[in-house]
């Protein structure tokens, strides 16, 4: 019997876990874009900082602490989420709020500056070289499908998918039913009108940045555990790819970001497996260019009407 099917299954699984990370980061881009119409170029750096905070927490606890593993991972996630939430809030207050209302490019250049700043901020504090993350969750499920090729499902990647799905469901409910979620949807439709109706728009913008940063941090911690190493420059390429995912799904749309992330993860994994692993980054960038050319509104996005 041929190995094609199990291999396909394996790639599908790898792509899903990668896509889940992209989706987590992409939500931050898409929410910020939906509300204030700017590309938060420094978002990838927040993801990187999340990964670092997770590693710092883990080192503080120690790998031989005797605490149950889920508790350790949960502590890493909670601390990373809390700290990056503060980062998200501060970055918005310091670098973006003063330039809000300026032309788009001013805000974008400010964001690029922030991105360079944060990269070097971490490089200065924690060193620019690769850091090893202890292998917390080893082991994998082997799926025997009656062929020579067994599908390997590592627990760490399984965890990525499960945590991401749980967060997506929670986020969807939160945006739909909570007070702040409703306020943020109102702001993304019409910020000025929402302000007139008594919504504290500044608070909503801050909330958006904090929430986006928190989700990115979860992605950062999970990927650090899975990959086992990190450096201060991982945020740049991950950020660009997550942005691609957000554009693919339709920037401004939260379900779009989830869908785009998964699709990009799959596209990249399949390109690496069946074309050449060297070209997987090129595939992602090419995808970005092609979507923007042929369908700038993305899969689930709404067209933007240009007003004079």
């Amino acid at each position: 019997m041929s190995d094609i099917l199990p291999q396909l299954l394996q790639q599908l699984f790898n792509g899903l876990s990668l896509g889940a990370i992209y989706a987590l980061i992409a939500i931050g881009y898409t929410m910020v874009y939906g509300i204030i119409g700017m590309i938060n170029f420094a978002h990838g750096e927040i993801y990187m900082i999340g990964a670092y905070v997770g590693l710092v927490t883990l080192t503080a606890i120690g790998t031989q602490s005797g605490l149950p593993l889920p508790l350790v991972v949960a502590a890493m996630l909670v601390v990373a989420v809390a700290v990056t939430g503060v980062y998200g809030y501060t970055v918005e207050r310091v670098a973006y709020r003063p330039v809000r209302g300026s032309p788009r490019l001013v805000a974008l250049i400010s964001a690029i500056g922030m991105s360079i700043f944060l990269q070097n901020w971490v490089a200065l504090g924690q060193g620019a070289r690769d850091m090893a993350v202890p292998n917390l969750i080893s082991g994998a499920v082997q799926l025997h499908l009656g062929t020579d090729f067994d599908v390997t499902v590592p627990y760490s990647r399984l965890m990525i998918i499960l945590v991401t799905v749980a967060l997506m469901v929670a986020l969807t409910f939160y945006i739909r039913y909570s007070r702040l979620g409703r306020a943020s949807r109102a702001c993304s439709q019409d910020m000025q009108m929402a302000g007139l109706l008594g919504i504290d728009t500044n608070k909503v913008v801050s909330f958006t940045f904090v929430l986006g940063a928190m989700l990115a941090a979860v992605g950062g911690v999970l990927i650090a555990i899975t990959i086992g190493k990190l450096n201060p420059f991982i945020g740049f390429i991950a950020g660009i790819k997550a942005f691609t995912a957000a554009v693919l799904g339709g920037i401004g749309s939260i379900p779009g970001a989830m869908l785009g992330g998964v699709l990009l993860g799959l596209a990249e994994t399949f390109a690496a497996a069946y074309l050449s692993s060297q070209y997987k980054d090129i595939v992602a960038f090419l995808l970005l260019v092609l979507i923007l050319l042929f369908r700038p509104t993305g899969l689930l996005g709404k067209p933007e009407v240009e007003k004079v």
Partner: protein
Amino acid sequence: MANSLRNALMAAVLTAVIVTPVFGLQLVRQGARTLMEPRWDLVALACAAVFAFQLLRPWLARPFAGLKLPTLPAAPTGGRRWVPALLIAAAVVWPFFGGRSEVDIATLVLIYVMLGLGLNIVVGFAGLLDLGFVGFYAVGAYTYALLYHWAGWGFWEALPLSGAMAALFGFVLGFPVLRLRGDYLAIVTLGFGEIIRLLLINLNWATGGPDGISGIPKPSVFGFEMARRASTEGGTTFHDLMGWTFNTQHMVVYLYLMALALALVTLFVSNRLIRMPVGRAWEALREDEIACRSLGLNPTRIKLSAFTLGAMFAGFGGAFFAARQGLVNPESFTFIESALILAIVVLGGMGSQMGVILAAILLTVLPEVAREFAEYRMLLFGLVMVLMMMWRPQGLLPMKRPHVELGPGGQAREGESAPAGAVP
């Protein structure tokens, strides 16, 4: 007061959260183990600084409120034609008396002046944010490197082709993407820049992969090599021709003069372009695309001309860079390089050529002078970009445009001022 105290306290707490995981608990690798080194002194210092700053901000703001940042003195007109001529003469003469390393740094400055002026056409004049400018620089550098490597071409034969190749890339890549809105365009150009770099790394058979191409010859002087010995049998070297003893300083000065010539050509051409109809159209398009379209201008064609011309200058710069370094590899063409060139344009003042030159000098010379702060260079660089956008988005020396304004008595008065929308 209580309010201000509470804000300051809040800011100090946030600072503690931000600084602790990055500087407060520093990770140290020891063999396979990762240890942690607490530095609470740094955290306390940062908190105290932020607390004091926030508390004193209302008082600090007062004396600075009336302070006006300096502006460019009125552009030299008519009677002061000799000023630029004098400056150019000084720039030509000084390397003959300057030290070797100073002349070398000045050459680097001139490369960035050239690149900055090229990007200024795209970002400053036409208002298209191009984050992949370094891609065209790479195309220019690799065009010369590959032509030398595979066909043995010299610098002067390859130079026009490098510019043409980069322009062609600009044209082909620009054609489909220039319909996109500003910030999307920025990201797509960033993607292009990265694709070019990744291709250079991965096309091992042609480009030498991550190692690049080395041994690229320096430019010759009217066909005479500037080396200790001629590379071909019976060839004449430049110092033989002139009857000088060989000195490596000659090459340094020669490269400097060539960079100066290229930078001046770029300055001259872009200075003329902006006064031509196409230059006017770039500026008009930057200010209001919808109005331009309704007046019958073709935005895609106009943008494409800016994009292509900018890429061409990057190509010239790249070929010169390859000749100066003697080797090219993909490492030299990362996004940070694009960001640096963009920072030169933004810092100088988008559209302002004098500003771009000033910023290129500042951003190249300062890191060389402050070598002991090399680690902080990029950190400060990012910070300066953010602060500039907050306080002075129009740049150090904003572009001035001749205009007429009504004086207090109602009579027209000629003057110079920054245009309303100097920033696209």
